């Protein structure tokens, strides 16, 4: 697992209060990890904070799974 993926996983575990082994690449925040729409907004904010990037709303709407978040951040962080 990449360093970015590890950091994403840690944030997801903290914010959603889920077991780390459930946070797999294909896990959907809403369907698999119990998040609601406000949780996903907060998660995106936490990613922005952790990685020092700005995630525009239209991009945020495409981040539905752990893997979506990792690939966005891999492409958009220096």
């Amino acid at each position, binding site marked *: 697992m990449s360093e970015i993926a590890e950091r994403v996983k840690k944030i997801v575990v903290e914010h959603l*209060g889920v077991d780390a082994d459930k946070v797999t690449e294909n896990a959907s925040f809403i369907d698999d990890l119990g998040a609601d729409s*406000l949780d996903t*907004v*907060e998660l995106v*904010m936490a990613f922005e904070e952790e990685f020092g990037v*700005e995630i525009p709303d239209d991009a945020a709407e495409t981040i539905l799974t752990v893997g979506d978040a990792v690939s966005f951040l891999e492409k958009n962080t220096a």
Partner: protein
Amino acid sequence: MVTPLGCGVDVTWNRILAGKSGAVRVEHFEVSDLPCQVACLVPRGDGSDGSFNPDDWMEPKEQRKVDDFIVYAMAAADQAIADSGWSPAGYEDQIRTGVLIGSGIGGLKGIEDGAFTVRDRGPRRLSPFFIPGRLINLASGYVSIRHQLKGPNHAVVTACSTGAHAIGDASRLIGLGDAEVMVAGGTESPVCRLAMAGFSSCRALTTGFNDRPLEASRPYDRDRDGFVMGEGAGVVVLEEYEHAKARGAKIYGEIIGYGMSGDAYHITAPAEDGDGAYRCMKAAIERAGVTPHDIDYVNAHGTSTPLGDEIELGAIHRLVGDAADGITMTSTKSATGHLLGAAGAVEAIFSLLAMRDSVVPPTINLENPSVETRIDLVPKVKKSMNVDVVLSNSFGFGGTNASLIFRKVA
């Protein structure tokens, strides 16, 4: 209930009867530049020995989204619903059960933090839970979601009268047929720098007891100099009488009177003639169909402010006249501090327990009464006595007054 004396009804009641105080010196934030440095704080711990462990009542990831007043309300509501034995399982029972939990000021700590976030880090850093975690009616909202209570969902905001108004209004909703059962009460978590500074600024808080917190809340005493801010929640389950009888519910008492009035005088000071307090109690008595001679115990508003205590006492003398000799009145705020929007609800519970156990909690720290009265203020030590009818008063900023009357059910 969750109070500065402990988490739960039994521990709080035992400690208040033992004459304990919940006041401490505030140490979890900077107070050195504040005129008042004491407060009554809910004792935190692992849940043993009456301590409050928030994790017992709300998941940590949910706690993070809300101010403590919501966590306290969840805890108090869980306790009250469990004690009542009423768990509406079917849809029909759910839609006949409502929630009415108020708060005086809601999530002030979260508002304080949120304002700093926007100023220092920009609006994009403000949590999506900022609003729903601060709104006063979200206490009722969270409780309704957890227990699937789909009847009226309401909240009261009347400063320090909130808890009494919530219980009174909820009983009216049952009387009018809007619900069969109401989970009602008040909750508050005001102890932060912003609230301490604000209440200090309007000269409401004690300032002379920063090195003696246990003695700071001293209603009716000549050395009192302001109230001690407290936190916590009180929640009761109200039920239509026949509904409760039919299911064999444990009944602590019956609400027979509820009175309300406005001072129309000043935003923070009580009217000096006590007329608002008098009319409020009179309305409750008339509604209850009792006379002043029937009242055994008055749970006073009695916040330990120089003005308010004597004005309330004067209003009660005007109300009861020659029945004063038979009245026992105490301020449980001497022990709990002033729980603001939760006070009226917590004190309603104390009133019910006084009837159940035939004992009245004392007014602690009352060494030298500032006025002479024929009413027994029960200084320092509890009083065993039969209690059939109780009057509980709550008065708030804005000149808002509420009185509740409870009667023992034979």
